[in-house]
């Protein structure tokens, strides 16, 4: 029996085009043996939720540097829940003030990775927290 690979959608919502981080994460997760789908730039929360559902991912990694996280991230969480994807982890990476982290978590974001996080920590987090599927 082969173990199902962890599937992750790396998403870039909002107008910002700085995708260095998103692309590094996508490659690091792939190198760690995960299946990664990168949405490309300027996806609306609706597009991201639809892609997550279609690709049947275990986690959505949202890269955001523009300061629009408080508007966009809760909406992504909500849309995933509306689509019955309660088990799908929403992770946020980018420029997020520490003060905003508790509020994002309250709204259903599983974890926020601040600048300076190593890609290995993110890999470990996913391995530890993605719920195994039958």
């Amino acid at each position: 029996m082969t173990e199902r690979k962890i599937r992750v959608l790396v998403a870039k919502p909002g107008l910002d085009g700085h995708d260095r981080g998103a692309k590094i994460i996508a490659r690091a997760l792939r190198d760690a043996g995960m299946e990664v789908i990168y949405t490309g730039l300027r996806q609306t929360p609706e597009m991201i939720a639809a892609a997550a559902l279609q690709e049947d991912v275990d986690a959505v990694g949202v890269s955001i540097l523009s300061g629009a996280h408080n508007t966009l991230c809760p909406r992504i969480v909500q849309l995933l829940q509306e689509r019955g994807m309660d088990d799908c982890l929403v992770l946020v990476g980018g420029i997020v003030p520490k003060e905003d982290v508790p509020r994002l978590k309250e709204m259903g974001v599983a974890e926020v990775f601040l600048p300076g996080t190593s890609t290995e920590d993110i890999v470990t987090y996913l391995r530890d927290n993605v719920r195994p599927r039958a």
Partner: protein
Amino acid sequence: MSEVKEITSPEQAAAERWEEETLAPVLQKRPERKQRFETVSLDAVERLYTPADVHDIDFDEDTAFPGEFPYTRGIHPTGYRGKLWTMRQFAGFGTPEETNARFKYLMAQGQTGLSVAYDLPTLMGYDADAMLSEGEVGKCGVAVSSLADMETLFDGIPLEGVTVSQTINAPASVLLAMYLVVAEKQGADWRKISGTLQNDILKEYIAQKEWIYPIRPAMKLVVDTFEFCTRHVPKYNPISVSGYHIREAGSTAMQELAFTLRDGIEYVQWGVDAGLDVDEFVPRISFFFNAHNDFFEEIAKYRAARRIWSRTMRERFNAKDPRTLQLRFHTQTAGVSLTVQQPLNNIVRVAIQALAGVLGGTQSLHTDAYDEALALPTDQAALIALRTQQIIAEETGVVNTVDPLGGSYFLESLTKKMEDGALDYFAKIDAMGGMVFAVEKGFPQREIQESAYQYQKAVERGEQTIVGVNKYQIENEQSKIDILVIDESVRGHQIARLEEARARRDDGAVGNALEKLKRAAQSGDNTMPATIEAVRAYATLGEVCDALRDVYGLYEEPAF
């Protein structure tokens, strides 16, 4: 090392003697700290540089005197003894009123030029009330949706007397039009106003990714501004060819140099193909480089840039005017090098990076504020950033002589290495048919991604140190600095202003101007006159860009 032993020069023989007699016994007793020493670009650095490393560099041909071809040592014979660089802090946040106040504050503190940061909706050609603008208005810069916002932004700032740099790319021609109309309303003479439009669309596809239209029509818009400015705004720099964003996206120093200058060549070629005279428009092309952590690598990059540009303009384009041959550039310290951890350390990083820019002969400089890894700068952080430049200029003495590091074996050798590496990239890109083709193939994009990934891995292996991040961390560090928070109410305020501007204007005049713009875009005529007419009638940024979107379509990035 070559297989065949070449005839040893006296310089080489001397170096070899030192290696045997003095170095070897020391290395036996105490090995060096690392096997390989490398720059922040992961490029190897040798233990020692001697005359043997510069034997292929000719002083008269390659280094020469400042103010003379190939300008390696600077474009001014007097360096900073005649005129200091322009201290130009990039600023913009929230509403035009707020940014106008920050501009006035910075000028009162001795800043000598202005630089506008626009928010993401503006950069993407959307009005504040567009659906996609939600959550983004005023966040990363100032929100400008129509001429009314531009009028407020420069209220009480006479545009004939100050040089203003505008960081705007995909919709650059529209913001230029607004700027020119504001200047005109102030009674300024377009022939006297000076400043810079970033307007470098190639690096958007390569690195920063804030595009609107497909590449070729976007290049046409750039050429339109060249043509228009050459004729009507002759002291204005219609483009700032930017390596900054290429570097921030993760390139090495040498890739930054190579791709930026090759972009520059592409713009010159497009201008020439449109019938412009090289010696008429190229003198107004300016450049913009990053100043990263590796001190000597950066200085070498700037010196190599001047040398390559002057030679290329002469050899490829047969340029004659010295101003065509002189590469002028702005420098900004590396935002990507700033850390959230122990943020006050960033003041030190910025100071050293800024010093590299100065020793490299920059024409203008932006020093990042220490809190920029967290948010846009507070007044206090912006002030320290400006003071850093003033301390370099007026306390350190580095401005007293021209190109003080010229002649250093290490620096001259590194300058040559940068130049050779960049020329190798030129050959590759030329073979693809030029930069537009290379970008369409995703070549520079992939090269940069690869470098960014390698750097990240080097940091994670601890081979590249980031103080406070992967070494000398403080456990449970509490961030105590105040940061600037942009209120969500900015969008409401801007939407109200937009509605007011729309209510006041003559919709018929707007419609006519936009139709005229579409016709110009379809026929291939210069789009600037119709763009100016549209913004003068208070057509909004979104409306003008929509007219062009209708004609040109939208760019979709292929998966690279």
